[in-house]
C-alpha cells in the first residue's frame, strides 16, 4: 500500500515533458519493479503460510533453515523494496526521489523518511519469519513445497534482482521522447543510508527474540497503538458503513419503503374497502327504501339537469 502511495506521489510531482517528466517515468518504473518484488514477497509469504498453516506472524520464526529457497527470495525482495543497490527498487525509487527533490523539498523529506520506515518494517517482517526464535514448527509432512512452488519464486527473485537494469526511461516517458537517467552517487547515498539504518534497527530489534521491542513500544505509547490499529482508518470505515450508512440510510430507506411507500398503496386498497363497508347500509333489503332511492334519483337528476344546467 505504501508503495502505491509512492507511485501516486511521483505522478503528482511530475510535470509534463522532457526532464520534468521524470516523476512520470519514475512512477512507471517503480510500478514495474514493484510488480516483481511485491509478488516475490506475496508468493514467499504464501509458501510460508502453506507450511505453518497460519498467517499470524507470531506463529512463525526461524524458518530460514526449513525453507532456504523462500528465504533467499524473500531477502532479495526485501532488499529491493528497501531500495538497496543494486536491487531493482533502488533504481526506480531513485528516479522518484530525484523528481521529488526538484519539485518540492518538503515532499522530498517525507519520501526520504518513508524509505527508512519501509526498510524497517520489511525487515521486521523478514526477521520475524525467518530468524527470531527457533522454529516452533516441527517436522511437517511436506517440506518447503514442490518444485512447482519453488520455480516461480526463483524467477521472481531473479527479476527483483535485475529489473532495475532495464532501461525503462528510454521507453516510457510522459511525452514519448527517451529520457536519460543517471545515478548520482552523492544523491543516492542519503536514501540508501537511511534504508540501511532502518534495516539495522530492525536487525537490532527483531533478529533474535528479546524484550527491546516491547520496551520501545511502551515508550512510544499512544503512537504505537494508533499505528498498531492502522491509524484507526478501518474503524472509521466500519463506523461509517455500520452506523451511518446501514442505520442512518439503509434502515430508514427500507422502513420508508415498507411502511410509507408501500403503506400508501395498501392504504388506497383499505380505503376502498372501508367505503365499500360504509355504503353497504344502502342495500337494506326493504323495497320501500328502494323506491325512495329511485324517486330521489329522479328528483336529483331533474334538479341538476333542469334547474342547474339548463
Amino acid at each position, binding site marked *: 500500500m505504501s508503495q502505491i502511495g509512492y507511485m501516486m506521489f511521483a505522478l503528482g510531482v511530475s510535470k509534463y515533458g522532457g526532464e520534468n517528466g521524470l516523476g512520470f517515468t519514475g512512477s512507471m518504473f517503480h510500478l514495474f519493479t514493484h510488480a516483481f518484488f511485491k509478488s516475490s514477497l506475496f508468493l514467499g509469504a504464501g509458501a510460508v503460510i502453506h507450511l505453518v498453516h497460519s498467517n499470524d506472524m507470531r506463529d512463525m520464526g526461524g524458518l530460514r533453515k526449513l525453507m532456504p529457497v523462500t528465504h533467499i527470495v524473500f531477502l532479495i525482495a526485501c532488499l529491493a523494496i528497501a531500495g538497496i543497490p543494486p536491487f531493482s527498487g533502488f533504481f526506480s525509487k531513485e528516479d522518484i526521489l530525484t523528481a521529488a527533490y526538484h519539485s518540492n523539498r518538503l515532499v522530498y523529506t517525507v519520501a526520504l523518511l518513508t524509505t527508512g520506515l519501509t526498510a524497517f518494517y520489511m525487515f521486521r517482517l523478514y526477521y520475524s519469519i525467518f530468524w527470531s526464535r527457533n522454529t516452533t514448527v516441527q517436522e511437517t509432512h511436506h517440506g518447503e513445497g514442490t518444485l512447482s512452488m519453488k520455480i516461480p519464486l526463483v524467477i521472481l527473485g531473479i527479476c527483483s534482482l535485475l529489473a532495475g537494469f532495464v532501461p525503462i526511461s528510454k521507453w516510457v516517458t510522459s511525452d514519448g521522447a527517451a529520457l536519460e537517467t543517471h545515478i548520482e552517487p552523492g544523491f543516492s547515498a542519503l536514501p540508501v543510508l537511511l534504508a540501511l539504518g532502518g534495516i539495522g534497527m530492525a536487525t537490532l530489534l527483531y533478529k533474535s527474540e528479546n524484550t527491546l521491542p516491547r520496551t520501545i513500544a511502551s515508550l512510544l505509547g499512544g503512537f504505537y497503538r494508533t499505528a498498531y490499529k492502522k491509524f484507526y482508518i478501518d474503524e472509521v470505515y466500519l463506523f461509517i458503513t455500520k452506523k451511518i*450508512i446501514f442505520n442512518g440510510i*439503509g434502515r430508514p*430507506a427500507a422502513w420508508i419503503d415498507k411502511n410509507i411507500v*408501500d403503506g400508501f398503496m395498501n392504504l388506497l386498497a383499505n380505503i376502498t374497502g372501508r367505503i365499500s363497508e360504509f355504503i353497504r347500509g344502502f342495500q337494506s333489503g326493504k323495497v320501500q327504501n328502494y323506491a325512495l332511492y329511485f324517486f330521489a334519483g329522479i328528483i336529483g337528476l331533474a334538479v341538476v339537469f333542469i334547474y342547474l344546467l339548463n
Partner: protein
Amino acid sequence: MNLSLLIILPLVTAMAVLFCKGLKQVRTVSLIGASAQFLSALGLLWVYWKERAAGNNSQFLFDFNYTWFAPLKIHYHIGVDGISVAMILLTAFVVIAGVLVSWTQETLNKEFFFLLLFLSVGAYGYFISLDIFTLFFFLEVAVIPKFLLIGIWGSGKKEYSAMKLALMLMAGSSLVLVGLLGLYYNTNLDGAHSFDLVEISRMHIDTAVQNLFFPFAFIGFGIFTALFPFHTWVPDGHSSAPTAASMFLAGISMKLGGYGCLRVATYLMPDAAHHYAPVIILLATIAIIYGAFATMMQKDLKYINAYSSVSHCGFVLLGIGMLTQTSITGAVMQMVSHGLMTALFFAAIGMIYSRTHTRMVEQLGGLLKVIPFISTVFVIAGLCSLGLPGFSGFVAEMTVFMGSWQNPDKWYRLATILSCASIVVTAVYILRAAGRSLMGVVANNQYNQLTDATWNERLAAGLLIIGIVAIGIAPFWLYQLITPGTEFIMQQVGKAVSLK
C-alpha cells in the same frame, strides 16, 4: 422472416402442453418449444444482420401489416428494429432458462408450463408490435399468467403478492390505456385517427396534448419497470414467485415497461419527453439510490435481488430521461443486461432455495464448499450486478453514465454522479450477501449432504452466463444492433428540440 412465428411458436407449444400427460412429456414438449423459440430468435438476429449488411436502412425490418379492426383503424402491424431484436433475444434466453430450471416442477406441471409459455407469447408479441393497440394487447396478455404463477406455485404470502402485482400492473396498463387513447384521438391521418406507431411518429402531435398524455403513458409503463414510487410490487412479487416466474418477471416483464417508455412514450411524444425529463431523472435517481440502500437492509436473498432490480431498472429510466443517443442506447443495453443478470441471479437463488429450503442470508453459509457450481453462478450474477468489467452490467451501466454525462445540464450531471456512487452501495450488499451465504463455515450440518446442480440447471445457468459474458467481453455487436434503432428515436427527439 415472418415475425408472427415468434408468437405462434410459444402459442403452439403452450397448446401442445395442454395435451400432454405427465411431467416428462410436459417438460420435453416445453423444452422443444423453448429451444425452437431460442433458435428462431438467433435466426432472427442472423437474418437481421444480413438484411442490414445488404444495405437495408429502413427503420423496421420484416414489416407486416394486416388490418385487424378496420372500422377503428386497428392493425396487426409488426416489425423489428435492433432494439426489438435485442429484447427478443433476451426473452428467448430467459424462456429457455426458465423452462430448464423448472425441470422438476411436480405440482400442476401442465398448467405451470402452459402459463410460462403463454407469458412468453405476450412478451414476444409486445416486442414486435408496431401498432399501439396490438402492443397494449400483448402487454396485458402478460399480466394474468404472472398472477396465477405467483399465486398458485409461489411461497410465503403468495396470494397477497400476486394480488398486489396484478393490481399494480393493471393500474399501470390502465394509465397506458388513457395515454394511448389520448394519443389516438389527437392523431390526424387524412381525417381519421391512427394507432400505428410509424404513422404517429411521422406526424406532429400538438405539444400541449403531448404534455397531457405523456405522464399517463410514461408512468403506466414505468410501473412495469419499477418506477419510484410505484415499485412496491417488485419486492413482494419477485420474492413470492416460483423461480421461473421470478426470472420471467424480472428478466422479461420489467423490460416491457422500459421498452414501452422508450418506444411509445418517448418516441411518440418527444416534446413532452423533454418537458418531463427533469422529473424522470429525479425519480430514476431516487430509485437508483434509494433502491440500493433499501437493498442493503434485506435479509432474504430474493428480496435482495428484487430491491436491487428497482435500483438497476432506475438506470434504464435514467438513460431514457437523459435523452442522448448514448444514454438511450445504454438504457436498452441495461435492459438486456439486467434481464440476463437478474434471471441468472434468481435461478441461482432458486437452486439454493430448493436445496436448503431457506433464502435467509444468516441461515446460509459455506455453500461454496458444498455446492460449488451453484455458488459460482451466484457469484457471477453478483459480480455482474455490481458492474464488474467483463460482464454485461459494467458495459451497460458505463454506457448509461457516459451518455448521461453528455447531457450538459449541471443538475443532470449531479444525478449522474449520485447514480454512479450507488454502485458502491451495490457492491456492499452484493459482497455481503455472497460472503455470508457462500463463504465461511457450513452453517448447517445437513447442508453437507446437498448435491450440486443437475444438468438442466447447469445448462440454464450456462446459457445465461454465455449471454452475460458475450455482452461483457464484446459489447460492440449489441451496441451496433441497438444504435440504428436509437438513432431514429434521437431524430425524433432532435426534431422536438429544433421545434422549440
